[in-house]
């Protein structure tokens, strides 16, 4: 198999974590998100001839992969809706593995209470410790905007966790 353009390994190393984080934030469970991310890379690689831009351009590649991922996720969600066996936006708390550490458990709950945009960047950034630049490329926003969202998110998370700890101590 001869690669038609991009370095697939480079793409997966760069965008794997942020892409899975993005898909989870859009309603896929973790396992489904991983599979959709695999599909996204496969689809992107095979339809490379339609990509307009340089494979080394992080923003262009990110936008390209985001488009494919969201399209696949949309199709997958529609398919699930038709089947009526599983609800769209499954309860993320139902996903394995649950955090064992109470502190992390509180943090997990706190993330679910963040605004969607902040949840998104938190998952994309910290799932695989991806640089904010990669997250920004995939979301089509500036690195500064990602950093701002992370900053706000981490502040809110601190507040949530502190509040939870106080409630726990009071009980």
């Amino acid at each position, binding site marked *: 198999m001869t690669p038609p353009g991009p370095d*697939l*390994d480079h793409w997966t190393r760069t965008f794997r974590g942020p892409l899975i984080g993005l898909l989870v934030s859009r309603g896929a469970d973790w396992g489904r998100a991983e599979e959709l991310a695999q599909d996204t890379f496969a689809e992107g690689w095979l339809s490379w001839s339609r990509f307009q831009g340089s494979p080394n351009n992080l923003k262009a590649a990110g936008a390209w992969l985001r488009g494919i991922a969201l399209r696949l996720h949309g199709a997958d969600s529609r398919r699930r809706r038709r089947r009526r066996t599983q609800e769209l936006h499954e309860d993320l708390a139902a996903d394995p*593995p649950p955090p064992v550490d109470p502190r992390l458990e509180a943090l997990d709950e706190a993330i679910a209470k963040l605004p969607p945009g902040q949840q998104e960047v938190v998952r994309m950034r910290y799932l695989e410790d991806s640089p904010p630049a990669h997250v920004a490329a995939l979301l089509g926003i500036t690195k500064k905007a990602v950093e701002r969202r992370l900053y706000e998110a981490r502040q809110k998370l601190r507040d949530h966790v502190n509040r939870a700890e106080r409630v726990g101590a009071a009980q």
Partner: protein
Amino acid sequence: MNQDESKMVAEDDLLDLFRPRRTDPEGFDEAVQRKIEKRQSSREQQPTARWQRAAATALPFSPSSSKGVGWILSLPFLMLIGSVLAFTSGVRAAGRRKPTAKRPGDAKAGSAIETLLHFGPFLIIVAPWLFGITVTIDVLMGLLIVAMLAFTLQVRGSGMAPSEVGRIGMSLLSTAFIACFLWSFTFGPLAADSDIGLGASAGVILLGIAGSGILLWTYGGRSVLSVAGLTMTAVWLAFIATALNPLGLSATDPDDLAADVANFAADPGKLSGWEDIAATIETLDGIGASRPDLSRMRDAIATAVSDRKIKVHPVVWTAAARIGLLTDAQWRDLVSRPGNAREVEQLIDRDGELYMIDYDEYEVWMLCATQELTPALRDHLAARIEATWPDPATPRALSEMLLCVHLFDRIGREDLVDAHRDDIHAAMRRQWVAEHSGFACSVGGFTSDPEEFATSFEDSTWAAVSLMTRVGVPADIDLRLVRAYLRQESRMALAGIGRRLTQLERATLVRVEREIGLPQRTIAQRVLGERVLIATSLLVLLCWISVVLAARAQVLRSIES
């Protein structure tokens, strides 16, 4: 940005939180590679563009194919071109005949038949699309018989020469042949009620044409048939006999299927043919025929298991699994491969529907062969298969249902198949291409997606028929129409090539006829079912009588003069 870390949650905590959810990079990359290979494989098999898919419903060849000679030679294309040429020549011939249209002594019915013949082939193209093939053929046969009967009654007093009568009669028989047999390649339900099949009617017509030639020879002398005419007739008949298989030979005995298996070039490195051969062996099992020797296939699979350099498509593993070509030891060897071990783990660890089930069915077989199916694991797998069970209104529902049925069987939960009987029947009704489906060709079988394709596909029909063997046939699906489609597809064009290409259709036909069985009919229904044969026999008889009557009238006239 001034960031006071003490006011924020620690990054390490966030990294710790997500760490258990990280994917294995190596496994992820392997999965991406596999998906690329699968997509490449499926893209090679399917036309991608919408216009290509639409064209594929009407044409028997891939519009994107570069094999020009192959598709030019395909019969319906030839028929279309031929019919348009026939129409053009009909118009020209009609124009030429105008000045002599009122020749004294011409039978009026003869002129009517000639007009019908000139424009008939063109109408034959259009009418089935508008009215349905069964109605068209019944009406056309009725018209031809009435016209031929009127012509026969007028021949004696018309003063027409036997050669002229013979020419008209043979043209009429040829039109009947075109209508009935050449278009049967495109429209499935032709003579769907007939148990004898169209082959007998084709034989009668060809016999009729040959007989008419002999009569002309006898009564009209050698001058009636020119050397060029004889040559053209011989070439035409030879083409029909060799390329079109007018007698409908289809190699659908169990021995034929066994021969297909014996001749299969078992190469696990190649995807081609494995699914069809598995279907053929499943059919032989289904009808209770003895299995042919599979040792060559077993050896090939054993080599593929031991030699990891051989890249085997998941579909090949699945086909081999279904027909029991792998031993438990070989499954253990397979599951020890890193990618497979991970897939099996995911089958156990994850919940929800099975992803890419059409490719990865073998993974469930691998799991069942290498681990003890505890009640809990069995229930877990059953729940995942249940979650995968498609809604009857989704595209490819029948094919996916069949995959799920295979898996229910494999984990020993056959009872769950019966629970889905209504779902399966609903999908069958939805995907069946009935004759009243509108602008559809190749009706009678099952399509993959009725919203996209109004034509039958062999794999969807195989899935439907396989499911029928499990949950029965819905009352509103005409199994004879299904059989008619399969008969049409099973006809061997150019014996050797066609045999390989029609393997799945032939296996499906055998299942319909020998495993499911067709509903019983009364004698009257049987006779009515053979109306095409009766009509063609009558046409031939009338044609011969006309020639004989014209010859006798000519003799009488010569005596009188």
